[in-house]
């Protein structure tokens, strides 16, 4: 598959690139790069309003992205956003502000990315809303504590698959339990959609946020899928062009579809690029790749443990192929820089999940995350790179 990705023809520090920072962002296949380039070369225009040919092509290209999203994930509504973060903030403003008030409860978990913590803290500060955090025990959500926390909850926001540990949370149970108490459910699926095909309507969540760039699409674009019920409870958040029906000096009326949440000129080329990525990935057997990558990641985790590393990812069935680890004495940044010198890209730091780092009792980890184009030879290069680091730092 690497031949579909032009970036793998380059060298990094004189060595072939082994890219293992996929949980941060994925590489782009030629078809995505070409689609965006062709859009700017051939069809560039603004969407929705003008009657000329280019505007028609631009609108068609951009709206194809929404159509593919709705089809692939079986969703009633797909609002196109700048990414997962904006999608979650949109729920906080467009739904939270109008449906939550003083004394209401939002349930979050200690495993959340900052983008699924901070928007709720900001909302809670203004409206005296209570936030409850479900604890993480041994790298997994404490589901007994979750049930206790649900008492009186109006909204539950859970990361589907953790960006730090790769662990897939029992979202089906979480949704069933939440619905039983009448709570709406938001899934942060940024790390989930790259690894599994989700049927949004069947799963039964109310909101699902994710980003294009973690599934071989462009940066700067993502989506919020919304259930029919939740959509009727939302009010526009940003005002401007494209989201209105009529505007007079006395007041305005808004569009009734997703456009009412998409004020201003949208990310047109990115939409075209994401549509190309969605078509490309629809020909990929995610399930078999997932099994293959999880097996590679499990082997890597075992090899790291054998070399004295602490591995925090449990890599159970359904988890993403993410190996978060630390060496007892080598600083993660030194480790990652010495791997980079050998062409191997990994991530270090708190991965935008400081509460989870506190829980693990570390300030950061080294994270190797695998994706579709990675193979066993990447794992070999990574491990021999690790050995060279250990030798150099001995």
């Amino acid at each position, binding site marked *: 598959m690497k031949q579909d990705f032009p970036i793998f023809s380059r060298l990094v520090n004189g060595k072939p690139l082994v890219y293992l920072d996929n949980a941060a962002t994925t590489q782009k296949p030629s078809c995505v790069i070409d689609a965006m380039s062709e859009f700017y070369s051939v069809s560039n225009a603004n969407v929705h309003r003008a009657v000329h040919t280019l505007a028609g092509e631009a609108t068609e290209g951009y709206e194809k992205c929404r159509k593919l999203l709705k089809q692939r994930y079986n969703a009633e509504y797909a609002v196109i956003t700048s990414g997962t973060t904006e999608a979650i903030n949109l729920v906080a403003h467009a739904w939270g502000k109008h449906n939550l008030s003083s004394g209401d409860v939002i349930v979050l978990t200690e495993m959340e990315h900052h983008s699924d913590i901070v928007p709720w803290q900001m909302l809670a500060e203004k409206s005296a809303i209570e936030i409850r955090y479900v604890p993480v025990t041994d790298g997994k959500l404490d589901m007994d504590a979750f049930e206790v926390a649900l008492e009186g909850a109006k909204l539950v926001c859970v990361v589907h698959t953790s960006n730090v540990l790769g662990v897939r949370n029992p979202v089906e149970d979480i949704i069933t339990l939440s619905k039983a108490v009448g709570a709406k459910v938001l899934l942060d699926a940024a790390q989930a959609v790259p690894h599994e095909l989700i049927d949004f309507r069947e799963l039964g969540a109310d909101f699902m946020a994710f980003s294009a760039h973690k599934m071989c699409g462009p940066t700067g674009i993502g989506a919020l899928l919304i259930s029919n019920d939740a959509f009727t409870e939302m009010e526009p958040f940003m005002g401007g062009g494209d989201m209105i029906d009529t505007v007079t000096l006395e007041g305005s009326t808004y569009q009734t579809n997703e456009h009412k949440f998409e004020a201003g000129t949208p990310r047109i080329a990115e939409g075209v690029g994401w549509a190309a990525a969605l078509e490309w990935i629809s020909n990929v057997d995610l399930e078999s790749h997932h099994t293959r990558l999880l097996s590679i990641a499990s082997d890597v985790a075992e090899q790291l443990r054998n070399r004295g590393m602490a591995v925090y990812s449990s890599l159970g069935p359904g988890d993403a192929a993410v190996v978060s680890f630390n060496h007892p004495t080598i600083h993660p*940044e030194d480790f990652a820089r010495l791997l980079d010198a050998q062409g191997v890209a990994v991530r270090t730091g708190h991965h935008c999940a400081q509460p989870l780092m506190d829980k693990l009792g570390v300030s950061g980890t080294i994270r190797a995350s695998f994706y579709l184009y990675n193979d066993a030879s990447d794992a070999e290069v990574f491990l021999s790179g690790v050995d060279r680091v250990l030798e150099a730092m001995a």
Partner: protein
Amino acid sequence: MSWPVAIQELIEEFQDIDEQFERLEVLMEFSEEVEELPVESWNNHNLVKGCQSIAHIEIEMVEGKVWMKAAADAKMVQGLQGILSIAVNGSTPEEVLELTPEFAEEAGILNSLTPSRSNGFRTMFDMVQRNVREAM
């Protein structure tokens, strides 16, 4: 550009290295040049802000010459501090203020490190000059 002898030697040492891994290994060896700032002396005043890892730098004036004490948790930051020590220790404040961080670029140290670390070096360099200016 002409540099003081110690810095010129340092530039040449790095320029002789072809492989990035070896360059980083040599950089880490420079950690030995650092006069360590003991943990009990770490405070907010000598904390290097904007550095991804924990780093502290303190400047002392001894008989009119600049002396630097430093500490960091990452070995490569310690190495950068070692290089800074070579550049400033025993110099007059005026000499230190005349220095520019480009010598690290010329040595290929900045190019070989990612922006956050380069900024870390620049941040440390700026902090040294600021402290020297305050001490004058």
